[in-house]
C-alpha cells in the first residue's frame, strides 16, 4: 500500500451546486511528504475540492486515487489514515481540551497519546480549559491537534490561519513545518499568498472552480516576468494611464483601491516614468513601494483581480 509516489491523485474532479460549477474539472497530484497548497480567493472551490477528498462531499464526476488506491468516495478505511482540520472547527461545548482530544482519539484504531498531542500543539497548560474559552489561535492549534489524534500520514488543513493575528499565524506555520519534518504530507488551502510562499512545496492557484496555474512558488513567480514590482497610490486618470502605456510601463491598475502595480526589470527608469507622468497630469503619488514579485502578483496577472479583493 505504501508503494506510491503520489499520496493523492485527482483527475477531472467535478462538483456542481445548481448552476454553479464549484469544482470544474480539477486535476492534481500530491507528492508524499510535501506541503501542497490550494491558493485562491474565497469561493474559488478550494474547500469543496478538499471536502471531497476528506469524504465530506460526493463528487459529481472524476477520479480520486488516495494511498495508491482508486476510490469512488472516501470511506471509513481512508478516514482512519487521514487527519482533517476544517475551515471552521466547532466542538461540543463544556468539554475540556483534553476531554475533546480523548473523545476524538477513541474514534480511531491507532493514534498518538493525548498528552503528546497537547505538548506538540503547545496547549498542555490549557488541558483542563473548556474548549469555548480558548482564543482563536489556541482553538486553531486544538483543531490541528484533533487532526493529529490518529497520527495520520496525510493532513488536510483548510485555511488554518484565517482570522489569526501574525504571531498566532507564525506559531501555526512552525507547527506545520515540524509536521513536514516528521514526514507527513500536508494539503493546505489558503488565500494568504505569503503563507503559500513560506510553506508550500507546490501551489495550485484556483479560480472559479478551476486550477489556473500550478508549480513551485518560485517558478510561478518567475513565470510572470519582472524582477521587481513598484506599487503606488494614485487617483484614477485616463490620460495618466494611457501615457504610461505609451511609455511601455507594464502595469495593472486597481481603481477600487487607487493602486497602481508595475512590473519591471529597471526600477529607476520605471519609477521615473511614473513620477514624471503623474507630475505632468497634476496627480499626487503616495505610498511608493518597491518589492519582489509574489504570488499575489501571479494571481493578479492571471485573473486581473487580487486574491483578497472580494
Amino acid at each position, binding site marked *: 500500500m505504501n508503494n506510491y509516489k503520489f499520496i493523492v491523485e485527482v483527475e477531472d474532479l467535478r462538483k456542481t451546486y445548481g448552476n454553479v460549477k464549484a469544482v470544474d474539472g480539477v486535476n492534481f497530484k500530491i507528492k508524499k511528504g510535501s506541503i501542497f497548497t490550494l491558493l485562491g480567493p474565497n469561493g474559488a472551490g478550494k474547500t469543496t475540492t478538499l471536502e471531497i477528498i476528506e469524504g465530506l462531499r460526493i463528487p459529481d464526476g472524476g477520479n480520486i486515487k488516495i494511498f495508491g488506491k482508486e476510490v469512488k468516495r472516501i470511506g471509513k478505511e481512508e*478516514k482512519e489514515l487521514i487527519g*482533517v482540520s476544517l475551515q471552521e472547527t466547532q466542538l*461540543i461545548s*463544556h468539554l475540556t481540551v483534553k476531554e475533546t482530544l480523548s473523545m476524538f482519539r477513541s*474514534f480511531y484504531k491507532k493514534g498518538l497519546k493525548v498528552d503528546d498531542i497537547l505538548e506538540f500543539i503547545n496547549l498542555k497548560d490549557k488541558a483542563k480549559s*473548556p474548549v469555548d474559552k480558548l482564543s482563536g489561535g489556541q482553538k486553531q492549534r486544538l483543531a490541528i491537534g484533533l487532526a493529529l489524534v490518529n497520527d495520520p500520514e496525510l493532513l488536510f488543513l483548510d485555511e488554518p490561519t484565517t482570522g489569526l493575528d501574525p504571531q498566532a499565524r507564525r506559531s501555526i506555520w512552525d507547527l506545520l513545518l515540524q509536521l513536514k519534518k516528521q514526514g507527513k504530507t500536508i494539503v493546505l488551502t489558503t488565500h494568504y499568498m505569503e503563507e503559500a510562499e513560506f510553506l508550500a512545496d507546490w501551489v495550485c492557484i484556483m479560480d472559479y472552480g478551476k486550477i489556473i496555474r500550478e508549480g513551485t512558488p518560485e517558478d510561478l513567480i518567475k513565470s510572470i516576468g519582472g524582477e521587481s514590482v513598484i506599487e503606488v497610490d494614485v487617483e484614477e486618470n485616463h490620460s495618466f494611464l494611457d501615457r504610461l502605456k505609451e511609455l511601455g510601463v507594464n502595469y495593472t491598475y486597481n481603481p477600487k483601491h487607487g493602486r497602481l502595480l508595475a512590473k519591471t526589470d529597471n526600477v529607476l527608469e520605471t519609477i521615473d516614468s511614473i513620477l514624471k507622468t503623474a507630475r505632468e497630469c497634476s496627480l499626487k503619488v503616495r505610498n511608493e513601494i518597491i518589492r519582489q514579485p509574489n504570488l499575489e502578483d501571479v494571481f493578479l496577472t492571471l485573473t486581473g483581480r487580487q486574491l483578497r479583493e472580494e
Partner: protein
Amino acid sequence: MKVFLSIALYRFKSFYRDTFTFFFTLVLPIIFAVIFGFIFGRPEGMGQSTIKVGILKDNEDLIKVVERIEGLNISILSHFDELKSLVLKGSLDGGILFDGKTFNLIINFSSFQQKPFLRTLGDTIANAYSLKEAGVEEGFIRVEEEFIDPGKARVSNLGYMLPGVMSFSIASSIFSMIALFGYYRKRKILKRFAVSPINPFSFVLGMIMGNFLITLLSSLFVLFAVQIIFNIKFYINWEYLLLSISSSILGMMALGIFLTALFKEPQTANNVGNLLLNIMIFFSGIYFPLSFLPNYLRTFGQILPLYYVAKALRISVGVEEGTPNFIFSMSIIMVSVFIILVSIFGRDILQVEEK
C-alpha cells in the same frame, strides 16, 4: 462499542456542566412543583386549605371513603334540604350525595372561585371510592397479580399532581434532540465528527445514551425532591416507574427528532417544541388537574403524549389506578416511534450533503 461509550460519557459530562440545561431539567420542575403545589394543595404541616363538605348520614360507606381524603372537613347531616341550605348559605363549600351508583356534588360557586381544589373534588372522590370498591380499606394490599398497587399513598390532589412534575424533566428530552439533530448540524459540530471514521449510529446512540442517563437521573432526583419538600411518601413500583420514565424519555426524544425533521431551522423547531411543551403541560393534567377544563379540552389533552406519560408515572408511584397493560402499551408505542425515527434520521446524521 468503545466509540458509543466514549460519546455517551462525554455527552453526559457536557450535559451536566451546562448551567442552562441543568436549570431547565432539575431546578425549574421543582420551582413549578412548589408554585403549583401551593396553589392546588398545601403540604402537610404548612396548614391545609380546608374544604367544608356535607354528607348525608345514611351514606356510611361514602363517609368512610371521604374521610381518607386530605383537606376535607366533613359535616354529617340528616336531610338533603338541610345540606342544600347550608351550601347555599356558604356555611358548607359543597355537599356530596351518593345513591349507590352515581355521585352528585352540590357546590357553592363563591367557594368554587376561592378554593381550586373544590373543582377537582369529584374526581378525587371518584378515585378514592374506586379504591374502596376494589375492596381497599386504609391499608391497601394487592388483590390480584395483574393489578398495580394503586392507593397506598393517601389520596390527595397534591400527591396526584406531583408525579407529573417529573414529566417536565422528561419533556426536556425534546430539546436535547433538537440540539443534537438541529443545532449541532447548523453550528457545524457534526462536520468534525463526519471526517472521522465513526459509525453514524454509534454516534447517535452514544449521544442519546448520554442524554437519556442524565434525564433519567434528573427525573428521579425531582421525584425525591418533591417527596421531601411536600412531605409525601409515594409507594413506588420501581419496575413500572423505570419502564415508564425510560420509555417516556425515548418518546419525547422521538418528538424532538420529528420536530427537527419537520422544521429545517433548529430555532423554529425549538420554538415549536416550547409551544408544544406548554400546550402539553397545560392540557395533560400535569400541574393542575384536567377537571378544571371543559370536556372538549379534556379530550384534547388525552391525545397529547404527555398525558400518558403523567398517567403512567402516577400509576407507577401508586396515586392512580391502572393496569400494567397501560404502562406496557404506552412504553411499546413510545419506544417503537423512537426506534423508527432514529433509524430514519440517525443514518444520515453525519452526511454533510443533503440527499
